[in-house]
Every structure is written in structure tokens, then in C-alpha cells.
């Protein structure tokens, strides 16, 4: 379960620390373990301009959030959502899916985690927060325009 890639992201997380400017900030909690993450999202012209975050939690939740930022920052919202879908599918696969490295990059290291239902929620915490924040940001822009 504890692949080197996961440990690397855990020890040296990417894009960590809350940054300005942002459109939406959300705070998500995994009630079963107390893991928390605050995610800020900035969306411009359908592009995920920036994602920053802070949080506390286990290696899986922290590393997955770090991997997530790599996969979504600078991407079209729609493409980022495709990555999100792929990661979600991988996590629900109970170890039975061969992940696509082109889509998930470092995220493929989490294939083993999907065999541990108790840890799947950890891996999804940051992603869920990002998705929530992004949806709000997109909605905000629609309203504004």
C-alpha cells in the first residue's frame, strides 16, 4: 500500500499552503478519522488556474491531495474532471483496475489503496473538496456573467 510515490508526496507535498487569489474556499472533514482539508480554487475562462490547500491527516489523504493538485492545476475544468472521474473509479475498483498512467500520472500509485475500504475515503478527501470548490467557482462565474 505505501508505494514510494505516495511516501514522496507525503513527505514533500506539492502546492501545499493556502494562496491568494482564489474564488472559493471549502473545508472538508472525514468524520471517521478526523482528517481535514481546506482547499482554495481559482477558475478562469474554464481553466483551473490555481489550487492551494492546507490540511492535516494521514499519509494517504495528504499524498492524494498533493497528487490531485498536479493533475488539475492548469488544466481545463472538463479535463480535470475527467482525471477526477478516473481516480474515483480507481478507488472504487477494490484493486481490480489497471490504472491509466496517461490520465492519472502519480495517481496510479493509489491502485493498492483501493483494496482498503477504510482508506479509500482518505484518498478521496482532497479530491472531493476540490470538486466541491470547483463546482462552486464555476457556478459563481455563471451567475456573474
Amino acid at each position, binding site marked *: 500500500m505505501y508505494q514510494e510515490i505516495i511516501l514522496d508526496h507525503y513527505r514533500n507535498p506539492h502546492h501545499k499552503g493556502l494562496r491568494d487569489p482564489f474564488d472559493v474556499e471549502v473545508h472538508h*472533514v472525514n468524520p471517521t478519522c478526523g482528517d481535514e482539508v481546506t482547499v482554495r480554487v481559482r477558475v478562469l475562462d474554464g481553466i483551473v488556474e490555481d489550487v492551494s490547500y492546507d490540511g492535516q491527516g494521514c499519509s494517504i489523504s495528504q499524498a492524494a491531495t498533493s497528487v490531485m493538485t498536479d493533475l488539475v492545476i492548469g488544466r481545463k475544468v472538463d479535463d480535470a474532471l475527467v482525471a477526477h472521474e478516473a481516480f474515483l473509479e480507481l478507488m472504487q475498483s477494490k484493486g481490480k483496475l489497471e490504472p491509466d498512467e496517461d490520465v492519472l500520472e502519480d495517481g496510479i500509485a493509489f491502485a493498492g489503496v483501493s483494496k482498503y475500504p477504510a482508506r479509500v475515503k482518505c484518498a478521496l478527501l482532497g479530491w472531493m473538496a476540490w470538486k466541491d470548490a470547483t463546482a462552486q467557482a464555476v457556478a459563481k462565474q455563471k451567475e456573474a456573467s
Partner: protein
Amino acid sequence: MTSTLAFDVEAVRKDFPVLAREVHGKPLVYLDNASSSHKPRQVLEAEREFVEQHYSNVHRGVHTLSQEATDAYEAARSTVARFIGAQHDDVVFTKNVTEAINLVAYALGNPGSPVPLGPGDEIAVTEMEHHSNLVPWQMLAERTGATLRWLGLTDEGRLDLTNLDQIVNERTKLLAFTQVSNILGTENDVPALVARAKQVGALTLVDGAQSVPHQPVDVAALGVDLFAFTGHKMLAPSGVGVLWGRGELLNALPPFMGGGSMIEVVQMTGSTYAKAPERFEAGTPVISQAVALAAACDYLGAVGLDAIKAHEVVLTARLLDGIRELPGVSVLGPDSTEARGSAVSFVVDGVHPHDVGQSLDDLGIAVRVGHHCAAPVCRRYGVPATARASSYLYNTEADIDALLDGIVQVQRFWGAA
């Protein structure tokens, strides 16, 4: 019984060790299935294997046993959901159907209820309900000031629907009724009742305790809002029941019991709650009992619910036909197998039901006597109690014949024939 619907009853019987027992030196004839059924080897072994090798508390651990236990418990939920045509998340495990119904009755009365009740509001039931689908609504009415109303019964033992539109009206918030009566055997017209409830915007709750064990049930197709049943009547152990509800409704209901597992964030000053089904499963759930219930669903599914139903129709017809031939014995409830389950209540003129039951027991025949937790039905038909025979997949025509012969012997003993 057509050949495609047949199954090997003798092979099934071998799965139930108790059926080889003798009672008072006579082979056991078990006709008390409406009260509770026996459990086949396969169910007991599934539970035992789980408890001996994969047991742990669920939901809250990362260690291997707790993951295996959680997987088994949630897989059981999926199996049970499939068995009634439902989605995994819409199935709540309770300890019995009584808890499932009380869960709804309390949740509806709790702060945050999507259907708050008060004076002027009405709850509708029927006169044929089991106490477990009557007393919770009486108590809810008492707590909230709402009024309880009910559909009466015809002399033939069916629901009297002539005043349906009065009893279920614009003030009705909930209509709760049984799919099949445990005392009369009557199968109610679910679509007609649901249609009327929908017209007036009332929720429907169906007590499936006597239907799910005996016939195919698809909760989605029934169009009801809430549906409940109980494991011990369908080859599972005591201690497990099910509440099914439409997902949006379940997630709109406030919780019933508070405690571990049903929470989201707990602070001393207040708490938020998890989504269904966890919201309604406070504390350590009925883990191994759920696993056993899933094994029971698998067992029933393998035999086939259509086949079981067809088998019971044959036995019920034989019993009704037989009783009709016996002077001084009469049936309470529908006298044909039309829209009817396998529970047959009867009274023997001049012999109190307790004495009927005790005398049959002397012959090795187990029937239930009393009001069968449906006292208003006895009152409606002017009897203090009844004797009730109810067959299931492991009963045979020989069992029915033994009962019919037993009734004659009882009459002779008590000088009533």
C-alpha cells in the same frame, strides 16, 4: 404446481436439523412459520464461518479483520437490497421489523421531520395490523397530537375499502399497512392503497414481515415510500430486520437513535449526522446477523420465491379444503388461496384455542394460539383467540394431513365432534 416451479422439498428438509426432531414421541410437524421460521445449515454455517474467521467491529478500523468484517457486512447489505429490488444505500439494518417501524415513527416526530405532525394531522392504518405496526403509530399520535384512523375489515377477512377516501384524506400524513396479514392471511391490494395515498400526498409504509419470506417482492415496483421486514421469519436468525426507504426520503428524515456510527461531527455542544443508511444504525450494528440474513436471501433465491409461493398455495389450498370438510371448524380470513398468504387461523367450536394448540402439541404438531399480536382482529370477529397454522417451503402435504387429522382427534378428545 407446474414442474418448472417445483423444488425438492425432501432435500430442503434435510437442511433443517430440527425437522428431524420428535416431540412427545411424535415426529415434529412445524406449522408455526408465521411466528418464526427455522434456519438452514447454510445460513448457520455462513454466520459461523464469518464469526470464527473474519469477525471484528465494522466501519471504524484499518486492520485486516475490521476490513473483512466491513466488507462482509456491506456485501450483506447489497445482497439484501438486491433481494427486494433496492439500492444498497437505501437498506437499513435493524434488530427486527418492530424497530424498523418505530424508527420511522420516532424520526417523523423528531425535530427536523420533513413531515411534522400535530393536532389536525392524521395517520392511517388498518384494523388488521400486527401490534408492531399499530402501537408505534398510537404512540406517535399521542406524542404529537395527531389522530389515528383505520380501515376496517369485511366479514370475509379483507380490508373494507368502501370508506378509503374518508380514512385516507387530505389530512393524512402517513398510511401504514401490512402487505400480508399474519392472522388472517389476507394479501392487501398495495397498488390501490398506494394510489390513494399518492392522491392526497401521504407517505406509505408497508409492513412486509409476512410477504418477503414467501413471495417475490420488488419495493421499487410497489411504489411505496418505506418498507420493512424481519429476518427470523425468512430463515435468518433472530436479531435482524430491515427498513428500506426511498433514498431522498431516508436522507430527509432526522435520526432515531443517537450514538456511534450515525454521526458526522460530534462536539459536546451538538452533533451532525451521517447519511443513510449509517444515520439509522447507531452503535455496533447486527453484524453477523446481517451476514446470516444475506445467506438466507441466497438460500431463498436459490430455491426460488415463485416456487416457494406456488408450493405454499398448494399446501394452503389443501388445508382450506380440508377444514371446509370438518364440521365445527371454521377459518378466520379468506377461504380461498386468492390474494392470500399461507397463515390460516381457525377456531374449533367448543374447544378453546389454547386447548386446541396444547392437544395438537401432544401429537407433535406445532401451531400458534392466541391473538397473534393482532388483538383488534380477534375482537372484530368476536373470538378471544385463534389457532393458526402457517406453512413454509419445508412443509409437506403430509404435514397438512397430519394437522387435519389432529384437529379431528382434538375434537374427539374434547367431546366437540
